[in-house]
């Protein structure tokens, strides 16, 4: 019965690294990322595109990886929260989330961070309404919503000041 669903080889770039992997036609991008490639900076919370935790940037757009067939990702450029900054550094968005103490259980953060990054790329100084619109599809059961809004503003300030990356060592101390 395995042969009934022949595997297909796909090539994709995730957070700057090239991958070649065999996928089944019915496998979802989130399955391939998490369980075949071991990329855990993408989470799965609902499998129905409702919670926002599986969101990735695919060719520059925010999409729920739990609703993308893996074969569609062939040739695509994917960014997860881990790819927002080079090794040893974090992005202004991540720094802002830390600054405002937005992290509690952290499960929603991979999706939220990408949504904020995408928003600021399009709209460097968004209003509260615009922020809420973009974050409306990300559930945070720990209640960090107000902090996300603050984080967008903090990150916006950093970016406008030209401070895009921060050393992780600076942050940990």
């Amino acid at each position, binding site marked *: 019965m395995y042969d009934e669903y022949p595997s297909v080889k796909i090539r994709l770039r995730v957070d700057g690294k090239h991958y070649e992997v065999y996928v089944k036609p019915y496998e979802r991008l989130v399955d391939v990322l998490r369980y075949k490639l071991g990329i855990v900076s993408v989470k799965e919370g609902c499998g129905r595109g409702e919670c926002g935790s599986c969101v990735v940037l695919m060719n520059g757009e925010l999409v729920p990886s739990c609703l993308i067939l893996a074969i569609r990702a062939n040739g695509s450029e994917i960014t997860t929260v881990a790819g927002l900054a080079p090794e040893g550094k974090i992005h202004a968005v991540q720094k802002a989330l830390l600054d405002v103490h937005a992290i509690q*259980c952290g499960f929603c953060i991979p999706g939220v961070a990408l949504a904020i990054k995408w928003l600021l790329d399009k709209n460097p100084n968004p209003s509260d309404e615009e922020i809420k619109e973009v974050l409306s599809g990300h559930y945070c059961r720990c209640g960090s919503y107000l902090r996300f809004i603050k984080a967008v503003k903090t990150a916006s300030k950093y970016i406008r000041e030209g401070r895009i990356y921060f050393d992780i060592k600076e942050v940990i101390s």
Partner: protein
Amino acid sequence: MNQIPEHLRIVEEVFSKYRRFVYVGKKLLRWDAVSKVTGRAPIFTADFVSRYRDALYVYSIRAKYAHAIIKKLDVSEVSQYPGVVKVITAKDIPGINDVGYVVPDQPLIVDRKVRYIGDVLALVVARDYYIAREAAERVHVEYEKLPVITNPLDVIDLKTLDEKKHVLIHEERGSDVVARYRIRRGDVERGFREADVIVENEYRTQFQEHAYIEPEAAIAVPESDGGVTVILTTQCPFEARKAIARVLGLPQGLVRVIAPLMGGGFGGKEDVGNVIGAKAALAAYLTGQPTTIIYTREESFISHSKRHPMIARYRHGAKKDGTLVAVEAKIILDTGAYASLGPFVAWRATVHSVGPYRVPNAKVDTVAVYTNNVYAGAFRGFGNPQVHFAVERQMDLLAEELGMDPVDLRFKNILREGDETVHGQLLSKDLGVGLEEALRRAVNLSNWYEKRRKYSLHSKGLVRKGIGAAVLWHGNSIGVEAADYSSVSLIVNSDGTITFRTGLTDFGQGALWGLILIASEILGVPPSYFIIERADTSAVPDSGPTVASRTTVMGGAATVNAAYKLRQRLNEVASHILGCSPSDVEIRAPDVFCRSNPLRRISWRDVIEEAHWLGIPLQEFGYYRAPSASWDEDTGQGSPYITYTFGAVIAEVTIDVETGEVTVDRIYTVYDVGKVINKEGVEHQAECGAIQGLGYALMEELIHDAEGRVLNANLSTYYIPTVADTPEIIYDWVESGYKQGPFGAKGLGEPSLVGIAAAIANAVSHALKAEINELPITPEKVYLTLKKLSKLRNDVRM
């Protein structure tokens, strides 16, 4: 003369000694924030699955009906499906087929009958999820259907609280009543006769779902010693170990449970860990291969415990001046198909049932009953949010009858230092009684009186505004549920870092960070020196479950003990090098010096090195056993909890009268937490509780149909608040100092949700000038309320 135990003496000494703080009370970034924001490393249970290539997948075949006898179960076609390795049924269980947390009523895999839609008939162990699911479709089951009960009033009478005749769900127990509790204080009949006003009403609340964003997961690996290691989403690793060992028929020591950080818990991962862990472990044990199980969101909805729905009748009597004279309550909790934590929830609800007030005469009866709904168990608040909704609505009704401001009525009756609770427990200064201060601050923060007056004038037009208040109390830790103890280990490593080990877990609440701040304060070492190890039953001490808002209070007290004793020894070692007395030693790592001669400094590493040479051990085990709680079964008198967290909540709402939409504009919370240890943590709790409480008040409800099937088992039809629903949240703190808490601290995990729905309901009631007796307060309910009052002035009304 009572000999005070050492662990208690140490905590009390630390409480009285420390006046100024370096770490305690500060807002410091939690230990795991950076790894969570970079996202690279595996953090949650399911993140580790890819390390186990070729792990088999375990899928649960569930019941077709909510109540039926299994006449025949044929899994032969399932076993034969290509890609299936094994099908496990009840008869394959080597140990005892039971995962009940309090009562042994819950089989892991059913054999005789199904009691709710999530009951498991068999486990399919296959190469992947898809094959398992396809194979599962090929099961053949013959059922003999039984009547499905979804209404607890079909099991019990609300007036008499007598069990009604019905086809029993748990016939093996002879009754579908799981637990009964009562309070009898004074003489309520006389009290009501003396009352000038009496208000009586019926209140109902709904099933609430935790909806943590991380679904339940487990990975089980068979070990060479015949045991099994399970990586598991559980708030109670030692309870899970017990349950898994029981199911497998293994000694506890051969079962190792590792609890990584979780993506939310809120009580929902309290006993489901037993279930999902046992499933994975059983499959691993019987196949000899690593297995994994990750619940889908839909499965999560139907297979872990919910918040108990409540049906309650309350009767309050008061004098003209507002003094409460009598409270009578009949409370029914629907615990669904299995007891789970039901008996304890019913007890806590009973203890808190009259609210944080002086009540001279009380008669409370609580019953928890089985139905064929999804089972109910632990959920943040644990029976308290339900009764507070009822009690705080009653207080507002009384205020209205008396023509008194609702906050004034509360000031008249709230418990103060020196008062006796309805159980006869003396609220001495030692317990930290800051309710009055909390209410006062909430009133000031919110400008209560002026808004109450102003919004009352807003009673025409298409928009109404309201402001409502609630006060609350929440007993810390587990009371008389079980022996209440906790423990931590501190191990100073040779490089100066400190390994912190505890069996308490984190699902986002960050309480463990508070424990680190406590250790930091006592040892004189920055929090960055500490490394928190994962809760691992093979490495950490049993600290009791991560429940009941006990981590700070109990884990903290254990941490105080460990750090205190370790500090004594470090002082000894340092005094050896520095030459001053041990009590003169000041540690401000990396520096160590004598207070009397601060210019002579040695390093933290010097001290550690010297300790090794002197043969002074640098590990310490901290243990804390709470003072015994007490509870008389017949009268409900005693000292049920070691202390109470108090609080006041005020909510402001705006209502669109045409659609019935309720918008919460602002929530003010002031909690008496004894002492703020972890500033970041208490702020998180206030916000998290407010938003979950808002969901409970306005939009969340898990709905069953008449056949016991869940109709809204996903996140678009079960509504949890989004960013757009979040109000302004303004908070303040009262630090009343609990003498037996670490630096005086009390818990906040649950209290931060307990009063929210009550305050919102009172605000809505104020805005509409109508009674609110049911949660959730959906737009349709507002519409029906207004219609009843014929207050619709919309020109398009029907």
